[in-house]
Structures are given as structure tokens and as C-alpha cells.
């Protein structure tokens, strides 16, 4: 460890303890994932032994095929990706749109809107879930994807706040120069503000996708047809299959691996690159 003056510092007991704590925690956190992958590859016979082997002598790679193709897990994955993608596209358009209005215009009531938006971030979703359900029922939207998609048209408070913070860095002089040239505000938003928001929008896209991918409460309430299920719902359904067949449980674990591993790895890589991009943009 070097200080600014370049002198080497001896690690103290305290720093070492902290480091050990972090490493132990990381191992504990990683362990279930490794255990899951290992368990998903065991044969049925190995699984029911009293001592579970870590490395299977006959890794059941075929099980992944069974789950993905024969049990049609690919359909749920596709559904989840579809819903998440739609929600991302909507959010990266609507939220900066709203943020532009909130950050660049000084209209009466601007502060009130801001405070109300802040309050919605703290509101538990459960208070409004029943009336929303009834509302969608009246519209005939139950058991479709509409209740999961339409709210995206109204923006998300967290994304609006986030993009507002980035917009502050774009100098107002650019807006004014464009206005003098005869641009209307919509064009300013589209051609000047948005292109400069790309790093921020990438982060918003990632977080929106992740939030949607993980969401199981809304799909649980609004979806009935198993063909429309998203990943969390299908996993719950597989879970109930487990009690029916001996092999069911291991298939469930294979499904879990498919649901967890690719997305996590992808996100870790993407988030690192996004963060680097945002840092670079910030420094400009």
C-alpha cells in the first residue's frame, strides 16, 4: 500500500482483519453457487447417497438439454427477456423525457412534483396492488402482459432522479444556443441532451433490465397461463413438480443454473464496462 508520498505502509492488524472478513464473506457467498452447479450435474443415484460427491463421476450435461428444450424452459427465458427488453426501451425514452422537463424548466409546482416523486420511491407497492389489479380487471387486461408493460409508459421515479443528476452536467448554454438557432424544446431534448446521456442511459438500461428480470411479484399476480410465465414463476412451478418425480429435483437445480449463471456473468461484465464508461464521461 503506498500513500501519496510514495512511502510503503505496513498493513495493520485491523486492515488485515477486515480483508480476511471480506475474503471469508466472498467465499461463503460464492459457495452456494458452486454447490448448485455441482449438484445439478449429479446422477440420481449419487444425489441420494448419504455423502454427496462434489464431482460427479458421470456429469449429467444432458439434463440441461432436457430442462431447456424438452421441458421448454427456453420459453420462460424468452418471455422474461421480452418483458425486460420492452421495459428497458420504454424507460430509457420516457424517464429522460420527464427528467428534462423537471431539470430544465422552472415551472410553478416543479418542487411539488419533485417531492411527490421522491415520496413514491418510499411507498410500499403493496398498498396499491389490489386496486391496480381491479383496475386492470375492469379493462380486461388480466392474464396478459399489459399490466406489466403499460406502467413503463409513465416513467420510473428512480430512473428520472438518476438521469436528472446527469443532465445537470450538460451546460444550459448548449440549450440556449440551439434555441437561438430556432430549435424547439423537443428537438433540443432529442438531438442535444439525449446523445450526451448515452453512458447514463446504459446504466439505466442495465438496472431496468435487472429489476424486471428479477421481478416475481407482479407476474405472479397477473399471469395464469404457464406458457406466458417468466423465469421466477416457472421455477416455482418446477418446484412443485419436484414432489412428483425423483428426477424432478435435479432438473429443478439444472433450471436454476440456467436461470442464474449466464445472466449474472453477463451483468458483471457489462456493469464493469458501463461504470468505466460513466467514469470517463464524468471526467470530461
Amino acid at each position, binding site marked *: 500500500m503506498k*500513500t*501519496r508520498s510514495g512511502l510503503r*505502509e505496513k498493513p*495493520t492488524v*485491523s486492515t488485515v482483519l*477486515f*480483508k480476511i472478513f*471480506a475474503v471469508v*464473506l*466472498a467465499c461463503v*457467498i*460464492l459457495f*452456494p453457487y458452486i*454447490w448448485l452447479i455441482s*449438484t445439478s450435474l449429479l446422477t440420481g443415484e449419487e444425489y441420494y447417497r*448419504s455423502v*454427496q460427491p462434489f464431482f460427479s463421476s458421470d456429469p449429467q450435461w444432458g439434463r440441461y438439454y432436457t430442462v431447456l428444450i424438452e421441458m421448454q424452459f427456453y420459453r420462460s427465458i424468452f418471455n422474461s427477456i421480452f418483458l425486460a427488453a420492452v421495459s428497458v426501451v420504454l424507460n430509457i425514452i420516457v424517464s429522460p423525457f*420527464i427528467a428534462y*422537463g423537471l431539470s430544465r424548466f422552472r*415551472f*410553478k409546482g416543479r418542487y411539488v*412534483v419533485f417531492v*411527490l*416523486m421522491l415520496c*413514491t420511491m418510499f*411507498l*410500499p*407497492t*403493496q*398498498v396499491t396492488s*389490489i*386496486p391496480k*389489479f*381491479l*383496475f386492470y380487471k375492469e379493462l380486461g387486461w388480466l392474464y396478459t402482459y399489459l399490466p406489466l408493460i403499460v*406502467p413503463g409508459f*409513465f416513467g420510473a421515479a428512480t430512473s*428520472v432522479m438518476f438521469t436528472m443528476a446527469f443532465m445537470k452536467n450538460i451546460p444550459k448554454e448548449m440549450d440556449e444556443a440551439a*434555441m*437561438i438557432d*430556432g430549435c424547439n*424544446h423537443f428537438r433540443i*431534448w432529442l438531438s442535444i441532451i439525449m446523445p450526451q446521456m448515452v453512458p447514463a442511459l446504459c446504466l439505466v438500461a442495465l438496472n431496468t433490465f435487472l429489476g424486471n428480470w*428479477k421481478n*416475481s*411479484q407482479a407476474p405472479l*399476480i397477473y399471469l395464469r397461463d404457464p406458457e406466458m410465465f417468466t*423465469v*421466477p414463476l416457472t*421455477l*416455482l412451478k418446477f*418446484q*412443485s413438480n419436484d414432489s412428483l418425480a425423483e428426477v424432478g429435483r435435479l432438473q*429443478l*437445480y439444472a433450471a*436454476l443454473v440456467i436461470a*442464474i449463471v449466464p*445472466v449474472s456473468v453477463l*451483468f*458483471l461484465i457489462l456493469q464493469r464496462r458501463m461504470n468505466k464508461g460513466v467514469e470517463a464521461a464524468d471526467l470530461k
Partner: protein
Amino acid sequence: MSAKLLHKHRRGVRNESLGWVFVAPWIIGFLGLTITPLLVSLWLSFTEWNGFGGISSAEFVGLQNYKNLFDISTKYGESFYAALQNTLIYTVMAICINLVVGISVAWAVVKNNKVNSILRMVIYLPTLTISTAFAIMMDTIIGIKTQSLINRLMLMANGTTQAWLTTPGQAIWVMVMLCFWGIGGAMLTYFSGMKQIDENIYDAAKIDGAGNMTLLLRICIPLMAGVIVYQMIMGVVFGLQVFDMAVGLSSIVGAGDGVMGRGNSLATLSFYLYNKSFVDGEMGMGSAIGWVIFCISLVFSLGLLVFVQKTGYYSLDD
């Protein structure tokens, strides 16, 4: 002065009210999907309704729903108090773990080097994992079946197994323990907060002889007061809403739809609301539960803010 007037009359002058047009989508959403449902749910909480026959068939019962919830002798009260107890234990413990472990881990890996990067990625992993998938994944380790890792070890050690998740009073501590896995989100927030502190402050303190703990407790944490308060309030709000984990764990003990673990072992307020409204179809009672969650959230959050301001640690005017 006259130049300003001239500017105002030039083409393309800024019409500040145009802001309303841009903000309109959010306002429509707020009125339609937040305020209106909020008020409807308040009204519904004073009724008894099975969800059929149009909203006019809802029977007005005044405070009966709330009375039932808080009366432990009714089946409502029994489940409600179980859910309330579990949710409160979980929320309080989750905030403590979030605070202590979150800051400690962030502090341990705050420097930018390869090892820390990897540690941060690993610790963040569960935050990227679907909560229900995570709960089912943990079944392989802490599940009640004899094949779970914990039970295998216990069988080898003393020949017994333990059904953590189906024993009321034990299941919730399993959920609390799982908070350790979810520490990545808090770690990231505190990490970002720490990154904003100027390194020079630490260097200056080190010259004065400050050790690691002093740097953390006397410099870093006070400078992160805002972030910490934010995390705690979000912790309260999200803790009181805990749902995915309870549902996931409940499914791995084979509880059917509408059963919260066994003997309400995995009851949480949100889970209870879901059961009452969407499984049992008791919309009025469900709404009442929703408002109870809301009020508890408000009380906790405001209480937290007041407490923090009183200790002088952080003030809204900062």
C-alpha cells in the same frame, strides 16, 4: 435592463410552463396508478369484498377488518401477528446487518486493485440473482430434506436433522441469515459513498497517527452520514415489504399456494397480503393489511429521520 427585455422577445424564448408537457407522462401515471389506487385501497380496507360482482357489491364494515387483524384470537389476528413479528424481526436485523456488514465490507475492499475488484464482483453476485431462484438454490444447503447440506452434516455428526424452515420462530432467522448473502447492494452504495471522500483527508489523519478504525469511524462514517440515512430508510421500506424470499423459501418446504411455511413460520406482511387478496379473494382484508404496512413504513421512516436528526449526526439542511 433593456437588453434583458430584448432577449425575452427574441425568437425561441424559454416558456417555462412547457415543463409540464415533459413531466406529463409521470403525472398521469402518478394520478392513475398511485394516488387513485391509494385512495381506493383505503376505502376498500373498510369493506368486505370477494372481488366479484363489481366494486359496488363491497360491503361496508367500518373498522372490522382492522379489528380482526389486531385481535389475536381470530384466525386473521393469528396470522397477522405471526407475519408482523417475522417482518419486524427481519427488518430490524436486515438494517443492522446492512449497516455493520455493508460498511465493513465496503471499507475492506474500497481500494482499487485486482483482488478487491474480484471480491466486489463475487459479493455482488446474489444481488444479480432472482430472489426466488436464490431461495430455491439455498434449498440445497439449508433445506428441510435430508439431502440438504446442513442436514447431511448433522446426520453425520449426531444423526438428527432439523427442519429450520417449518419451525415457527426458526424460519425467520434463516431469512435473516440470508441477508448476509444480499449484502452486495449495500456494499455498492457505501462503496460509491466512500469513493467520493477525498483521499487527502485520510492522508492528513494518518500523519496525525490515525489508525484504520479511527479512519473508518471518525472520518469515513461521519462523511457518509447522508448515504447511511438513505440506506437505512430504504432498508426499512424494503424490509417491511419482504416477499420474494418468503415465497421462495415457502415453496421449497412444499407449502401449497396460500400457505406461509408451516404454522405461519414464513409469514411476512406482504406474503399475508398476497394470500388474503389473490388466493383467498378477500380484497377488503388485503387492503387493510396494505395500509398497515404503509403506516408502519411511515412511522419507522419518520422515526428514523427524527432520531438521526436528534443525535446531531445528520440534518436535512445539510
